[in-house]
């Protein structure tokens, strides 16, 4: 009995070794990451970002004042769009040329290293290929950078533009309801705050309000989030993608499935 079991084990092991190379796909190694903070610390970026931050600080005040006078939701939307556009234009003017060179440098490095995707360092917990120093070197070099002739290879890491999905009317409605709910509840908690005598009591009121808002957010938004996650997972399955991340974390390459997810959600 024992002998038969051992021979069965050996046979299975041999079989596993024999079929393994053909049946098991290789590990995913074409994932790179970049430390955008290091990139932003380069003198030319730091200077442009400081100018942009200063501009934004002024704009924020103007925005807050303009929003005070916006009576309807349509007014608020118009004001928001106007200020966003102003900021984007300034950003384009200050950072645009630098950003373009950084993109070219990244594309060159990624192509040389045969990477299908480069993501922000913040979302890499372990592993991946760090391309930060190579990209900084390429940006600093005096030579002209040309776009690589080949497009990045297809990636098994997909991405969705979460901000585009958040723009759906359902999500907007839910956020609006949440805001209304907060506005309704706030005065009662402010009264409680007035009655609170110690810091602990005040913090307790803060925690109660926080929990109330959090619960309401879960109630209003979680079903939508779950729905989006489910649609995203289905699209990922259909497209043979391993994982799907947010567009905001993707710096180069990857497989964009935003439109597919939007279509699935609109069905």
């Amino acid at each position: 009995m024992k002998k038969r079991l051992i021979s069965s084990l050996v046979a299975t092991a041999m079989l596993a070794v024999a079929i393994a190379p053909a049946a098991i796909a290789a590990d995913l190694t074409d994932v790179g990451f970049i430390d955008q903070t290091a990139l932003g610390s380069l003198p030319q970026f730091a200077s442009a970002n400081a100018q942009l931050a200063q501009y934004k600080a002024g704009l924020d005040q103007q925005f807050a004042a303009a929003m005070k006078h916006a009576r309807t939701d349509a007014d608020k939307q118009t004001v928001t769009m106007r200020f966003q556009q102003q900021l984007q234009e300034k950003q384009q003017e200050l950072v645009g040329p630098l950003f373009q060179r950084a993109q070219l440098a990244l594309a060159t490095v990624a192509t040389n290293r045969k990477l299908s995707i480069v993501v922000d360092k913040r979302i890499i917990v372990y592993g991946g290929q760090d391309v930060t120093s190579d990209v900084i070197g390429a940006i600093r070099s005096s030579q002209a950078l040309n776009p690589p002739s080949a497009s990045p290879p297809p990636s098994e890491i997909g991405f969705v533009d979460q901000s585009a999905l958040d723009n759906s009317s359902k999500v907007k409605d839910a956020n609006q309801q949440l805001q209304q709910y907060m506005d309704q509840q706030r005065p009662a908690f402010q009264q409680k705050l007035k009655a609170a005598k110690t810091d602990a009591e005040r913090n307790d009121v803060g925690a109660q309000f926080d929990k109330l808002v959090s619960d309401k957010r879960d109630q209003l938004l979680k079903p939508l989030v779950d729905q989006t996650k489910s649609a995203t997972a289905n699209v990922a399955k259909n497209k043979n993608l391993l994982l799907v991340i947010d567009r905001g974390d993707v710096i180069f390459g990857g497989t964009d499935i935003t439109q597919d997810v939007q279509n699935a959600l609109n069905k």
Partner: protein
Amino acid sequence: MSRTRSINKRNGVALVLAAAAMLGGCSRVDVHSNSVRGVAYVRIDDVIKHHPLYPQVQQLESAIMAINLESTMPHAPLSPQEIAQQTQLLNQQLKDAQSRANAAIQQKQQQYNAQERQADIVALKAANIDPKAAGLGPQMNATSQQQARAAAQAAQQDLQQYQQSVVAQDNAAMTSVAQQLSKEADQKFRARAEQYQQEETDLSLRLAQQDATQRLSLRTKANNIAMDATTRQQVAQQLSALDKKEAEQVAALREQHQQDLAAYQKQLRAETTAAVQKQALAIRSQTNAKLSARQQQVGAQLRGLGAAPVPQQSIPPDVQQQLIKIHQEFGAKFQADAQATVAQYNATKSDLDRQFAALHGEDVGATGAAAKQVNDLQKRHDDLLAQIQSQIQREANKIAKDDGFTVVFDNVQAANGGYDLTNDLIRDVESLHE
């Protein structure tokens, strides 16, 4: 801590599976299988909630929430005098911040000038050139440097004075507008109050006229000396009831008017605040434009003062290049250092601007001491969170390395493959503190 999954050894099939897993090279998940491909992901936000220090993070969040909640409480509108008084206080704080920033920048400029001069001397001596002969000795270019410093100082003072005068004009205009609008509101309120008073008087007269015949009759009766005590008392009561009825009607109207007046006052205050805000926005916008234009003008003047010093004696090109490089290096250091001072000043100014806006009834969240408290709490919150994240990161690295993953992601939107390390990491983080 053992993360190895328990293996059921009850039958041979399990044994075979265990052997296959061993061949795969991983103790608990087949990292290299088709569905995993060496990829894992983790929901760090979920893991953080299981860290033993997380309750402290929540406490800090609650404290921040309480302050923010308080800062959005409605406050009674201030009188024009109070607005003017507090505006003066804010202006003084702004002036102090400007003085501090200017003094700090001047000090840094002198410090870097001295260091640059010393570096120049060392470079010239190394090239066997007498610094004095080259006009770069300790007293080098003393006149021109002094002139440059004086010009920079004058430009700064000029800017400061200009800022103060523009801000003062702004505040004077604001105070005047606030007073004017407040006066108009007072006039409207007084007019309404007088109208109500007139209505109350009219009602009182009307009621008196209506009851005049009855009152006369009762008084005539009361004056009859032959009347018995009981009847006299009844007549007196009737007269009293008549007075009371009239008084009650007038009182009811007065009560109604008081309520209306209170509502009207509230409405006027809201209208005044809105009008003041509108005017404040327009005035501040003009002021900012003026200040910005002047700042650019002075900035251009100061940049013009920063050119490399011209040596008085012919110096070999390579040494000249070295001197220019030294000048650029110290110039860059000064710029970076000055930038920090300017950033600090801007942060103060930004908070003062918010306080100014809040003073005029705008909802700008926490300001002043409350804003500082929120910032302090936020910093503690962020530091603590970073500490927790760092520990989780270390643990995740260890697990990923031990298991042989090639890459581990955070913030994944959806997964069709890969291995979810979240629960393993939660167990790991919890067990570390047991």
